[in-house]
């Protein structure tokens, strides 16, 4: 803050003379897109950009407080203490393990059955909402709260372990993996898989007009393909190796579980300091790319309804001009902009790292980028919460209402809820907006705290750590303002 303290009072007046009229003019001018009266669904007391300023102020204050109050690294020691043995044995035991695995296999079967044999309509088929809302988003929340629950529920792991048990019974030994996993590959297969999973929903399925526009048959074929691919990976490199590095869902939910306080070690449930699990998560190659891809794909999803809407269709127009079909042109254009969104998010982070590297005693660029990669996990969580909170809230009413009673969409009423409707009035647009702002602020303050903690270890002194973290503050404020801008555009 010393740069601001040293500012000449006359210069401050000059800055104020320009800034104050701009702010006042912006405050009294009409709301964004006032020319389109139908778009204004919210009635907020202040303009949305002022929320970005308020959120930035919260981050700056947090940064100052961290500089003074957080003097030692608290998240690095990996301390873990087991809970009572009886409680642990009650929750983590072979029976619950097999039951959870069986539940996962059952749900995988339901997804395949409904997607391949139900009505091929996104809004009335159980499978799409279940995969892309209930599982993809719901398991993120469960992972943060209760630890790596997907490991127990993972249907592919359960099937592979069952198969392994049969082999052991017949042959008397567990066969070794035929190939050694290339260390340099790290988590990169999972990164590619994450982008593919989101691409399937946002790009391939973008021709539909539903919450999830993908067709159930396409999803069913994708799930079948992914099942074979995962079995191949586990068969070639070993079950645990592939799950930890190559299997998208295990790596993705495992990443978010690092934030929570619960962890199972050697079949024993224990507690650790919240956020401390993430401290050494990003050391495997591709881990930082995993977080960046998560933020980047969410950014693209928000931007395609707002600022990227016009560029996507403009680029697609150029592609149709050179003779491509409309659907292919839109998909190519969206693929391009999705890649550009991930690249832009990565560029913002790496710009911050490059800035940090200018500090005396800094490690090299690459180690520094890896070292701070885990601090982006809360931001990925904040982006997911902010962008999909309302989708989850409304779609889960459908999931546990008519989709559960009529999973194939052909007129069944298994639980008497087939005629239930989604109550879109249950949550106001303002309430959604405040949850979004709250999630973004909380996520970025958490990320900033984790970065400060890591900086103390890297730079060895709280003062130098704080100085280096101005660049991470820039990254965090950048992501906060970007997130709020995209949300204001998408909801506006």
């Amino acid at each position, binding site marked *: *803050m010393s*740069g*601001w303290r040293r500012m000449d009072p006359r210069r401050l007046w000059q800055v104020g003379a320009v800034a104050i009229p701009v702010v006042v003019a*912006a405050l009294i*001018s*009409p*709301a*964004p*897109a*006032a*020319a*389109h009266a139908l778009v204004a669904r919210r009635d907020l007391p202040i*303009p*949305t*950009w002022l929320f*970005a*300023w308020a959120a*930035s*102020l919260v981050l*700056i204050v947090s940064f100052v407080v961290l500089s003074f109050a957080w003097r030692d690294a608290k998240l690095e020691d990996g301390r873990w203490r087991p809970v009572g043995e009886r409680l642990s044995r009650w929750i983590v035991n072979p029976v619950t393990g097999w039951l959870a695995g069986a539940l996962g296999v059952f749900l995988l079967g339901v997804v395949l059955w409904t997607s391949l044999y139900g009505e091929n309509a996104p809004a009335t088929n159980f499978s799409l909402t279940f995969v892309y809302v209930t599982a993809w988003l719901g398991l993120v929340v469960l992972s943060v709260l209760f630890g790596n629950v997907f490991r127990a529920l993972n249907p592919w792991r359960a099937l592979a372990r069952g198969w392994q048990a049969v082999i052991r019974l017949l042959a008397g030994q567990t066969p070794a993996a035929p190939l050694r996993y290339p260390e340099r590959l790290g988590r990169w297969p999972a990164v590619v898989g994450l982008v593919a999973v989101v691409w399937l929903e946002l790009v391939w399925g973008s021709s539909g007009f539903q919450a999830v526009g993908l067709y159930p048959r396409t999803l069913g074929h994708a799930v079948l393909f992914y099942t074979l691919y995962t079995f191949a990976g586990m068969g070639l490199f070993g079950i645990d190796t592939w799950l930890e590095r190559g299997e998208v869902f295990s790596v993705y939910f495992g990443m978010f579980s690092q934030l929570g306080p619960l962890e199972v070690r050697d079949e024993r449930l224990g507690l650790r300091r919240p956020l401390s699990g993430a401290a050494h998560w990003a050391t495997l190659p591709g881990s930082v790319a995993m977080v960046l891809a998560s933020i980047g794909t969410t950014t693209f999803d928000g931007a395609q309804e707002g600022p990227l809407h016009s560029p996507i269709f403009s680029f697609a127009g150029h592609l149709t001009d050179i003779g491509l079909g409309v659907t292919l042109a839109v998909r190519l254009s969206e693929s391009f902009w999705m890649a550009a969104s991930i690249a832009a998010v990565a560029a913002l982070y790496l710009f911050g790292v490059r*800035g940090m590297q*200018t*500090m*005396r005693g800094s490690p090299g660029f690459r180690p520094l980028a890896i070292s701070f990669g885990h601090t982006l996990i809360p931001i990925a969580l904040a982006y997911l919460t902010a962008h999909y909170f309302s989708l989850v809230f409304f779609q889960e009413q459908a999931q546990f209402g008519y989709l559960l009673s009529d999973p194939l969409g052909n007129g069944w009423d298994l639980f008497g809820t087939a005629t239930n409707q989604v109550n879109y009035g249950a949550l106001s647009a303002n309430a959604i907006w405040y949850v979004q702002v709250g999630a973004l602020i909380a996520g970025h303050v958490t990320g900033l705290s984790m970065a400060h903690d890591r900086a103390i270890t890297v730079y060895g002194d709280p003062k130098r750590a704080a*100085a280096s973290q*101005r*660049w991470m*503050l*820039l990254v965090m*404020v*950048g992501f906060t*303002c*970007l997130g*709020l*801008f995209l949300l204001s555009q998408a909801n506006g």
Partner: protein
Amino acid sequence: MMSGPAETLAAVTLLPVAHAGHWYFMPLYAAPILIILYSAIATTVRERRAKREEESRGSGASRSR
């Protein structure tokens, strides 16, 4: 009421104003980022200056030896 060329001119001048609602607030989202960028760059400049001073002190000390 305007008519003829005046009406056309008014439409031409008013359109961008009506659509200003789409873009005027965009730089406002960037303002906090620019303020912190200024602070971060100032830190880096000070760091580089301190590094140069350290280096010159170091080379001066080695020359005097």
